[in-house]
């Protein structure tokens, strides 16, 4: 059963089209992440689902009801904002119960729900405090609690962790995941952070310029990106791209080097054309074991970026930049020559013109 369904959604501000004929089906209990660079329309889409923006065309269904013209409070959604948006003059308890009071929920029912939400989020000692007396992490918990007490089926998160520091972000990320496993509601989560997207999502929708580029599981998006934009966007450090020619025999030619693409899973089979050969830095092997890989190169380390857990080394293959991720303990310094190898079956090849996966 679908929980949220978006059909042919259009949204324009004046002459600027922000969302273009967007379709999206989200299942019950699914955790969907809308991922994209800023300005891609992901937050706009979330605001449309919440009913905070009027759509120009198309329909929105929540729980099989057409809610396109419905007020935000009648849509059966709860929303968590990036800036927490807690009412500063109310206590935590007041913040949690505000929506319920507006909905004229009986008093003992309000108390029961607030107590339950406070317990789930472990904010019971904070109930009598004002938001100003809370830390960032506590505030965001209260903001989540405000959505929780509404007892809704669909949770909307608008970059909820972006205002927190790195450590707190990691902690709350796990907590949101735990919350989802516990409540099992539908969650739609907007972020520009790919780590959040990869770790939380059942499915990720990668957006660019108001269009969904790819809607798939995190693993599929990571391993088989449908176009160069997605391939470049997902993964850190980002994918290497070598510019060259694909032959109809399934060989990739870059400069004087020919790489045999044995085992590569083509979409349609090899067609002779100029292509981008994409390869993830973490799938390349350097030093020991490199010789056993199907494709090997002799390269020189140009820049070494040690990051503790691993080391990123910048080299060149046929005069094109290529990064490789090595073990953090690897002893390598600028100017060192080493052997680099990889299995071309793990590459992603994109047509030069359409930038679509080959």
């Amino acid at each position, binding site marked *: 059963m679908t929980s949220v369904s978006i059909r042919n959604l259009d949204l324009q501000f004046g002459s600027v089209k922000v969302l273009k004929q967007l379709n999206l089906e989200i299942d019950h209990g699914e955790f969907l992440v809308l991922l994209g660079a800023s300005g891609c329309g992901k937050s706009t889409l979330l605001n449309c689902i919440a009913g*905070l923006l009027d759509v120009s065309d198309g329909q929105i269904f929540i729980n099989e009801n057409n809610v396109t013209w419905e007020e935000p*409070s009648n849509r059966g*959604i*709860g929303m968590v904002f990036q*800036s927490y*948006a807690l*009412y500063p003059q109310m206590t935590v308890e007041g913040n949690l119960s*505000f929506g319920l009071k*507006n909905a004229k929920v009986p008093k003992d029912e309000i108390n029961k729900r607030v107590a339950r939400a406070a317990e789930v989020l472990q904010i019971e000692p904070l109930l009598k405090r004002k938001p100003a007396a809370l830390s960032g992490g506590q505030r965001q918990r209260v903001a989540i609690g405000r959505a929780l007490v509404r007892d809704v089926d669909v949770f909307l998160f608008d970059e909820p962790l972006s205002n927190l520091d790195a450590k707190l972000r990691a902690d709350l990320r796990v907590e949101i995941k735990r919350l989802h496993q516990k409540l099992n509601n539908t969650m739609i989560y907007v972020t520009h952070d790919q780590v959040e997207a990869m770790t939380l999502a059942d499915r990720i929708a990668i957006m660019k310029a108001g269009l969904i580029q790819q809607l798939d599981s995190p693993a599929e998006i990571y391993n088989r990106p449908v176009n160069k934009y997605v391939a470049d966007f997902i993964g850190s450090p980002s994918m290497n791209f070598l510019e060259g020619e694909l032959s109809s025999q399934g060989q990739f030619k870059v400069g004087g080097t020919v790489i045999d693409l044995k085992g590569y899973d083509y979409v349609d089979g090899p067609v002779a054309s100029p292509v981008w050969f994409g390869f993830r830095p973490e799938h390349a092997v350097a030093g020991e074991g490199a010789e056993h890989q199907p494709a090997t190169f002799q390269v020189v380390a140009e820049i070494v970026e040690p990051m503790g857990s691993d080391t990123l080394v910048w080299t060149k293959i046929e005069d094109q930049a290529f990064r490789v991720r090595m073990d953090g303990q690897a002893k390598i310094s600028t100017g060192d020559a080493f052997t680099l190898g990889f299995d071309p079956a793990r590459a992603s090849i994109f047509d030069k013109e359409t930038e679509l996966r080959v």
Partner: protein
Amino acid sequence: MTNNTETTSTLMAGPRGPKPTKLLSPRNIMLYGTLIVVALYYLLPLYVMVVTSLKGMPEIRLGNIFSPPVEITTAPWTRAWSEACTGLNCEGLSRGFWNSVRILLPSVALSIAIASVNGYALANWKFKGANVFFTILIFGAFIPYQVMIYPIVIILRELKLFGSLGGLVLVHTVFGMPILTLLFRNYFTSLPEELFKAARVDGAGFWGIYFRIMLPMSLPIFVVAMILQVTGIWNDFLFGVIYTKPDTYPMTVQLNNIVNSVQGVKEYNVNMAATLLTGVVPLIIYFVSGKLFVRGIAAGAVKG
């Protein structure tokens, strides 16, 4: 390798710690000198007024306007308040004071109430034609009052409000609208938009959000609006003299009549006392709420 956390480094001779500042540097002399001169320039007339209002007429006739009173008397003050004559009427300023209060309170309350709702609607509920409406309203602030005096006389006559306090209240409310709406709109725009969105998701309506979310966060701007309106309306002379009758003259108009009455001797001490009495209300407002005033004006300038 040295461990910096355990060893103290030896200090060299020369500059160390904060840079010393000289109290009597040319910069300070210029700065404070200018400030003192300007302050004196503004305070001197006030001093003369206070001193003169506490002197008897014989002492004033000596002509030493800067000398402090030899014999302090409060008679001019009581005279100004309850005995000074305007034409045939010798009740002093007290009647004008109460008229002004009766004009001030409803005008301030009404104009702020309407303008804050206007500003809130313009800032948060983007209705069709909001920008056109706002532009027209702001344009109203730039039309000279003189142009509108006569049309308003006719409107008030038709409404049967001409010459009454109610008429003047209406005029003040209308004329306060452009600038107050601008003030409130800008303040509400500076409040985080997500707060408004959250309240909508929580099911609060137009008035619910206004009263329970926006109002509690807007004390500074209400104080600013109040100060602007209180001083503006209290000090108004033009509308008061045109739209009221002698029984309903506000204090400023009555002050003018007392000071400018030509019969008998010019009682400078009474005039000074009357002027100070008239100016005391805005002064009190400034002193009481000056801090909030500055905070409210500054709010909205910087987000965050």
